[in-house]
């Protein structure tokens, strides 16, 4: 197991490093004048540097260094990770204890109002007056941004149409379902066509149909509308569908940041289903230097070389085992989240600590003695 875990650790950490380094490289490539503060901000919508927030002795955010690019980014973390504090900080609603940051080029310490005028915030919980009809609620939210009432009304119609409430816009909100309320909140958030939409648990409490529509709407907003979305959610599937990047917070610290694909590549494996001679095949593959995890007839081999499939088949032919199924296995974002949270979480001090922290096992369906989390 130790032999198995060691390379995985290095692989895991190398990808994390690479992801962050890519961000650094991107920063340098796109923003050569970053240090002087003259950077073009089109590609980087949120940036923080050593951002900390303390509530008395309680640390909510600690030395947060983030670099969020344009597009869709998922903000993940368990309860108490600091997501809400982070959102309030970048909205300019609370003052950071130390550190600095910018949102769309505006300083979060001094330009909170300017930030809030350029972003659309979709709160997690109810934020609508149940006795108002949807059209006037959305119109009023536009007026609160400084929109002319007539323009706000026009945009309210367009926004509600966009979120699928065109036919229900004159209904009172108290008659709405949860999905319709969520859609109304999204309409309030996008009425002024913000450059950045902060969606806090947008699919929380929705049934499958409403959830699909909400996710599709967010995807459409990003792809067709060319807008950025910062999406805080506990639903990994939703984040994975909408977002290209994630930021993972834990106890106020950055646990991971980068492209989902890069992070998921940590766990790329080939999964085979073997018939007859599984033990021999396993031994043969290990002998050829492959890293194999086995659960009965199912084996997963770390995908480290392009010739892996040929080598597996060669081993199978040598030992006389039948491979009845072979496919690439890719960890889901939830797998990744669990790996980081459960195996690293409580001891993570920072991303640097994350890099140096040993990984003992991965949460897969392999037995414990083989490096998995199953008993």
């Amino acid at each position, binding site marked *: 197991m130790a032999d198995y875990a060691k390379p995985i650790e290095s692989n895991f950490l190398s990808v994390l490093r690479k992801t962050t380094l890519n961000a650094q490289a991107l920063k340098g490539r796109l923003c050569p004048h970053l240090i002087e503060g003259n950077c073009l901000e089109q590609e980087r919508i949120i940036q923080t540097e050593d951002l900390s927030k303390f509530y008395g002795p309680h640390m909510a955010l600690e030395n947060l260094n983030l670099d969020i690019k344009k597009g869709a980014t998922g903000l993940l973390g368990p309860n108490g990770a600091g997501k809400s504090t982070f959102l309030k900080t970048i*909205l300019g609603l609370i003052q950071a204890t130390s550190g600095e940051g910018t949102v769309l080029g505006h300083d979060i310490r001094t330009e909170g109002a300017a930030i*809030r005028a350029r972003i659309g915030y979709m709160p997690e919980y109810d934020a609508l007056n149940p006795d108002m009809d949807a059209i006037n609620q959305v119109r*009023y939210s536009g007026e609160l941004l400084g929109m002319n009432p007539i323009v706000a009304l026009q945009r309210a119609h367009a926004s509600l149409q966009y979120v699928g409430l065109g036919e229900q816009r004159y209904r009172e909100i108290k008659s709405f379902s949860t999905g319709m309320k969520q859609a109304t909140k999204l309409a309030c958030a996008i009425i002024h*066509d913000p450059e950045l939409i902060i969606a806090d648990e947008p699919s929380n409490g929705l049934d499958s149909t409403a959830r699909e529509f909400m996710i599709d709407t967010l995807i459409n907003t990003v792809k067709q*509308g060319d807008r950025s979305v910062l999406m805080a959610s506990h639903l990994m599937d939703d984040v994975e569908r909408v977002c290209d990047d994630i930021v993972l917070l834990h106890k106020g610290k950055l646990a991971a940041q980068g492209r989902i694909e890069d992070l998921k590549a940590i766990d790329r494996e080939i999964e085979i289903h073997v018939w007859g001679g599984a033990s021999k095949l396993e031994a043969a593959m290990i002998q050829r230097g492959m890293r194999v995890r086995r659960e009965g007839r199912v084996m997963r081999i770390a995908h480290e070389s392009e010739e892996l499939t040929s080598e597996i088949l060669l081993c199978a032919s040598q030992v006389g085992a039948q491979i009845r199924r072979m496919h690439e296995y890719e960890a889901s974002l939830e797998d990744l989240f669990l790996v980081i949270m459960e195996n690293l979480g409580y001891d993570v001090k920072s991303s640097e600590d994350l890099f140096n922290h040993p990984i003992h096992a991965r949460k897969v369906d392999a037995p414990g003695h083989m490096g998995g989390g199953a008993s």
Partner: protein
Amino acid sequence: MSEDEENLPQSQPQPMAIAPQPLPLTQAQPQPMAIAPQPLPLTQAQPQPMAIAPQPLPLTQAQPQPMAIAPQPLPLTQAQPQPMAIAPQPLPLTQPQPQPMAIAPQPLPLTQAQPQPMAIAPQPLPLTQPQVQHVATEDIQMATAETPVTGQARMDTAWGSSEGDENISEMASIGQTDSGEIFKQNYEPWRGELNPRWMRNWAILRHHILGIFKKGHRPWGVPTRIFLVLVFFASLSDAALTLLSSLIGDAEFHSFWGVNRDNLYGHVLGFFPRNVMYYPIVAALLVGGVISEDRLHGTSALYFSRPINRFDYVGMKYASVAFIQAIIIIFTLFLYYLTEIMAFGRGWAWIVDTFPIFLGALLGGVLLIITYTSIGLALSSVSKGKFFPGIGLLAIILGTKTLAIIVKNLFDREILYLLSPYDCLAHVGQTLVNTQPTYDQYSWTWSLASLIVMNAIALYVLSSRVSSMEVTRE
């Protein structure tokens, strides 16, 4: 003809997985196909199973034919219908061919009366070969205005429930098309500019004030609106009686209702009925949910995620509630004064004499509005409902007054009046209007100081509570 074939009934039903259709076959059995059937080189007694994209099968007589997706080959006989799933193609069947049953061994446990499940989306069964070509999916067109109206339901037309002799034109309604889309999601950008701070503040003020008069703004309750209208007209009672006294010319009647020092004071600060039945209840109804309902419904997030700071938020709420009260108290005072001038043709000398008194009453009204609003909003800010702030405000105004009266009557001490907002206002108002004071045991400055303290405490509570309101869930 083989023996097996001879045993076949003349007409066999052929159930399908979806919408089974009994096929009134005559000679022999139908031959359902799974997907994309192709010409079948049928030989004698040779069933031809079709998989996905089947190919001509060079079958020999006794060969078993494995099936991929449940195709059920049946020996074709004369004029056999060909049930088609997707993209059927013409079968190169020539003249009625005798189709003897397959010779054993047959891997397919088909019996003569065996149901024939369709693999994928069975479609109406074209009976003849020329019809089959028209049914191809690519050729199906949407119904047009020229499409004959047959009265058949759509599903009936699509899947058929008749004997299979449908008119081919009825197939038009099941064509694949990208039209008919009810909702198309298009993100519409907006390139307008947002107005500055004053416009946002005006939006809050407008939202609350216009809500009294019309739908689409802050939804004040119907009882609140009705009560406000009643109080407004009730507050104009002295103006109406002044006008009446001018019409009837009764000097004694006018001295009772017309503008004078006591009546100007009484219009704003008179205890009964105005400060018992009118103004405290108006204030209670107005302040009740102004802030507390933002907490209750979470609409504070709507404000604070916008470029609106706490001062603007509470300031505009305060101003809107005060403005509505001012319409009832100050505006009616002004109308009362104006009625006296207009009805009796008062000249400048009278105006110069009475205007300071009017200003004193107006200032007293402003103090009343400020005090009631401050206390009411402070109560609203600590609550999540509109009931508690309203009742709390009434309890403070009327309860302290009642307590002070009791103490005065029992102990002949007026000091507790300093705890009563109304009595402090009345004491200061009597000084401003310079009418006969009713509080003899202490100076009016104590009442003014008490009012200042009350307002300071209320505003402190209000500001601290509003500053702690969250954009996220509280």
